């Protein structure tokens, strides 16, 4: 028996070996090099990190990056929760259709979706034209080329990342709990708040984590819709690497972003059981 269990364990290792090797060669090794460059270019030492800390532009860019990611997360959770909840409480025949509508934007590139927002939110865009046509405003609103426009588009792009974990979570919730609460006299709101919502917390956390972490690395949408005043840190990194050949500062910024992201995940781990949230949800 023991020998067989041992062999089993080996078999599973063999199965993941190719993936593990690919990770080591194409992810871990380059990552180590990035780490090394940040300490060796242009001179050995902490120079790049000192520059990073002393630059107000970089500090502001980090603040913008985390603010945009956080606000996007809040927006996605609010909208995503409602959508996921609605999908699980509609008649079964529409579930497929609704799921498809959620996933549809995934099939379009982020670039295309961002350009679509430009068409909608511009001074002469559909939204402004409609509002002016209805007589609600007399001059175009500034819906774009600012953080507001960025957030609208970011929430749109990120929404499926919130809906999917929430749905996976809600799928595993037994409706009889809420029914029981109702049967015992709880109002609909109380039953939701005290019985349903606590059960969806793991889904909320994994959705929040997923949306937040992916948003941190985003820059195409902010670059297109931010008018230049919403500078995400990854755009700053691209600039240093591609244009100035300042690979030292570029890699130091990457390391800083990685560390900051890891810190967020670790902080989240203090409040939630990550293993449970991410691996055993529902």
């Amino acid at each position, binding site marked *: 028996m023991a020998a067989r269990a041992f062999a089993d364990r080996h078999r599973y290792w063999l199965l993941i070996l190719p993936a593990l090797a690919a990770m080591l060669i194409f992810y871990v090794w380059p990552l180590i090099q990035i780490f090394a460059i940040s300490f060796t270019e242009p001179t050995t030492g902490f120079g790049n990190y000192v520059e990073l800390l002393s630059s107000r532009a970089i500090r*502001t860019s980090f603040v913008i990056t985390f603010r945009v990611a956080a606000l996007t997360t809040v927006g996605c959770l609010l909208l995503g929760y409602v959508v996921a909840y609605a999908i699980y409480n509609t008649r079964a025949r529409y579930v497929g259709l609704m799921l498809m509508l959620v996933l549809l934007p995934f099939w379009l590139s982020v670039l295309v979706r961002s350009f679509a927002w*430009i068409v909608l939110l511009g001074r002469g865009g559909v939204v402004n034209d409609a509002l002016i046509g209805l007589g609600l405003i007399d001059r175009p609103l500034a819906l774009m080329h600012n953080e507001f426009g960025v957030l609208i588009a970011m929430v749109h792009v990120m929404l499926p990342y919130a809906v999917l974990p929430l749905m996976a979570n809600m799928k595993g919730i037994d409706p009889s709990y809420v029914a029981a609460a109702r049967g015992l006299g709880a109002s609909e709101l109380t039953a939701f708040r005290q019985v349903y919502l606590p059960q969806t917390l793991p889904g909320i956390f994994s959705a929040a984590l997923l949306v937040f972490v992916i948003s941190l690395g985003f820059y195409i949408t902010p670059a297109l819709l931010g*008018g230049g005043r919403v*500078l995400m840190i990854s755009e*700053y990194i691209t600039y240093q690497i591609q244009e100035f*050949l300042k690979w030292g500062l570029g890699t130091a910024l990457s390391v800083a972003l990685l560390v900051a992201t890891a810190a967020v995940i670790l902080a989240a781990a203090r409040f939630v059981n990550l293993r449970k949230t991410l691996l055993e949800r529902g």
Partner: protein
Amino acid sequence: MEDQAFRTDLAEIAAQRFRRGEIDRRSLLKLLGALGLVPLIGSDKAFADAKELVLVNWGGEPSKVLQKVMGDTFTAETGVKVTVDGSGPSAGKIRAMVESGAVVWDVCDSGPGSAIIMGNQGVATPIDYSIVDKSKVIDGFTWEYGVANYMYSYVLCCNTQMLKETPKTWADVWNVKDFPGKRTFRKSVRGMLETAAMAMGAKPQEVYDFLKDEKGIKAAIAKFHELREHIIVWSSGSASQDLFLQNEVAIGCIWSTRAQLLRDQMPAGGFSVTFNEGVLSPGAWVVPKNNPAGAELAMKFIAHTQDPKLQVEWLKLIGSGPANPAAAAMVPDELKAWDPSSPEHMATQTVYNDDWYAKNQVKAEELYIDALIN
């Protein structure tokens, strides 16, 4: 540096011209095919052999024009086969290539800023001025690791339908009271601080004098900080064009090649362009270190491109101005208004100073971003 984006932009202009039917489908398809042939670093087959010269630019129509105007004529003269690769010789790619020991490019359509950076990092070959003729380049546009190949300008443009009066100088552009509306400037400091200096009264010829020390730079940066609420930046040539087409901005500082396109696209009389207080910029040939065809052949090719007749042809087909001063006299009358480096236009413009950029750009860039986002 400035040039990377500018060149990619030329490719986009070409795509537009195709849509308007100015270039035939076969040529465009041929080009797209050529783009698929981008050599892979490390593959033996990709190494250019000695009888072949590989030019690299930013794709699209300019690749085709480069092949036809400069490449084929060089082949006719020397028998050396010339191939154009449109995959974009960014400084980052050239450095990666040189450092991995697998250089497949011979002559790159880069810029003086990149040339200086690459020279400093030891990944470019010095230009051999015993083969390349300095006297065939407008004064000041030769560097140790690069030599001007063509010229373009940053110019003041206005959507005149959105304005009661048309701003004529950068001082007007900073006057938001009399000239209301959003302005667009480049997302990078290149060609931009110059406009702020002129807005503060520096004559085009004195711009870099004004910006020579920290005090001048800080003043120009503060000027942008003051205007930031009215600024929408453009990061690509097509974006600058869209901002005007969609009436997002009333005023802008954009590339002359894009302004030329806008003149035809905006309603008649609804758009104005002036080379007054423009910033004239050069592109540059750069030869990567250890290029496969050897430095000498690369230099001979560069010397070949200095022929003013070929350069006028280039202006005709692509809209970028000749780098050889002898070409100005050969430019046909109807194109003169759009030749960024004509003597008339040179007199009213400031000339992009790469030494200044080599010294100050990285710092200025950070301050510029800081001024816009804070």
